[in-house]
């Protein structure tokens, strides 16, 4: 069944609930029935923790994609900020603060460059952000000579970003939940959010309506860059060291979640909370496959099926809307 949202766009819903939430519930029940271990509190927390890094990247990507553009530089930004945070070598509380904020500012700066190239110069966002990805990876590898970054002393205050628990819930999960809430409000209740939807719906119409397309559009990329950088900082705090050649590619798992959550690849539609639900769906499936001893190639295969299946499904829905 399809109904309308307050913003006016269609999303696939069952009754009043977006379908992705129903899918999440079904997947959780299915996983619980399949494996006794799945519903253990420690495993459920692991599911959330698994989702957090990709989830934070996916939230930023959602905002950019609602604006009608792609940000494929995020994986490289995650790696850059993790390396930067550890190179700052946060061995004191002050250094720890710098190790959080400098990478986030650097990530936002990368986003500003991407955004200006896309919205002011009107370059293709896929090409711009893939180019940026190469540039960042090259610069970071050159900066650390391709070596593992392994600081000897990390301040407890820095590690606390990843290790603190609030009512038993790990800090990164709390940060992720807070970001989902914050971005949901930003996109649905503020002028900024409304303008991003308008730009993604029809950029020329937005321009003619007097919306500051370059500023707003660039800000979406800056947000995406800052969020990817935050994800990198959390990795640095969690692991305490980074091998820049081995850091995972986050952009495609994130994109899978964004698309699975119903964000339109052509812009103007999507919601951060539905991306978050989708990332949990992916995380539950991945977790279940790990419990059931399916190897990484099978997990990749399932991820590929989810991405292409979701794209095909939503394309079909929109074609028949």
């Amino acid at each position, binding site marked *: 069944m399809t109904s309308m949202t307050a913003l006016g766009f269609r999303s696939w819903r069952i009754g009043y609930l977006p379908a992705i939430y129903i899918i999440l519930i079904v997947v959780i029940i299915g996983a619980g029935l399949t494996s006794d271990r799945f519903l253990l509190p420690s495993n459920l927390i692991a599911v959330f923790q698994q989702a957090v890094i990709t989830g934070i990247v996916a939230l930023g990507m959602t905002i950019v994609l609602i604006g009608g553009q792609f940000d494929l530089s995020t994986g490289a930004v995650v790696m850059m900020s993790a390396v930067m945070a550890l190179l700052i070598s946060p061995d004191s509380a002050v250094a720890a603060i710098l190790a959080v904020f400098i990478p986030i500012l650097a990530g936002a700066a990368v986003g500003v460059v991407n955004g200006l190239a896309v919205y002011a110069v009107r370059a293709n966002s896929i090409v711009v952000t893939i180019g940026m990805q190469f540039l960042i990876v090259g610069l970071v590898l050159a900066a650390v000579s391709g070596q593992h970054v392994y600081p000897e002393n990390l301040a407890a205050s820095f590690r606390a970003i990843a290790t603190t628990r609030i009512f038993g819930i790990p800090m990164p999960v709390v940060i992720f939940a807070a970001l989902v809430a914050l971005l949901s409000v930003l996109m649905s209740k503020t002028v900024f959010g409304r303008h991003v939807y*308008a730009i993604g719906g029809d950029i020329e119409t937005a321009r003619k309506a*007097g919306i500051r397309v370059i500023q707003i559009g660039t800000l979406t990329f800056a947000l995406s860059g800052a969020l990817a950088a935050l994800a990198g900082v959390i990795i640095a705090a969690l692991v305490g060291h980074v091998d820049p050649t081995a850091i995972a590619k986050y952009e495609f798992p994130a994109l899978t979640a964004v698309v699975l959550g119903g964000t339109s690849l052509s812009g103007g539609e999507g919601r951060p909370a539905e991306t978050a639900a989708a990332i949990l769906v992916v995380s539950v499936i991945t977790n279940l496959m790990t419990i059931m001893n399916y190897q990484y190639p099978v997990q990749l295969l399932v991820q590929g099926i989810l991405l292409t299946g979701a794209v095909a499904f939503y394309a079909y829905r929109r074609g028949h809307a």
Partner: protein
Amino acid sequence: MTAPIIELVDIAKSFGGIRALKGVSLSIFPGEVMALVGHNGAGKSVLVQIISGVFSADKGTMLVAGQPVQFRNPADARDAAIETIYQTLALADNLDATANFFLGRELRKAFGFLDTRRMKDVAARALQALNPEFIDIERPVRQMSGGQRQAIAIARAVHFNARCLIMDEPTAALGPRETAEVGELILRLRQKGLGILLVSHDVRDVIRLANRIAVMKSGQLVGVVDAEGANEDSIVNMIIRGSAKGIRH
């Protein structure tokens, strides 16, 4: 005589080597519908986009209420109470009527939050004043009829105190009934004292709706004639031949 709302003096515009406008002068008065007709490529759209602030003229002067103006963007034109209703209606199809009504001019509460309730009330009142049958304003505009979409664009312009309305092919995509509705609307707006620049291909329509008809060809103004007493053949003749010879001005 009342002063013109908009006065264009010798406006020229080129794109690369192509001279899209070659010294066009035109005035639009309050309570007047000035029609602008001509073939594709005659320069109508470029002229409209200069008046609405999308392009800047290379040469010439534009006066609004007697004051020279230079628009850097569409927002400048709107600040001067010139509202444009584009052929595409400049509506974001993914948003609902209220969001489109206030697009770019949202009512805000503190910290950039949308005043959603007030916007909905104002938009509903404005749309229903124009068309009492306009009730369901929460659908995405892509699901609305051409007439309803047109009504949103017009209601938006009128609500924001337009003194001059530029309508670019307002009935091009409409059926006969909706075309008649929009025609009625134009006449009502004219009575309210708005100046209207009506760009159209439909010569019969402009004779019915306009006070004066400006004909363009190849970036030049061929002539301006009174709609009263004009006939289709004479206007079509001007459009094709690019000459106003023998036409009553």
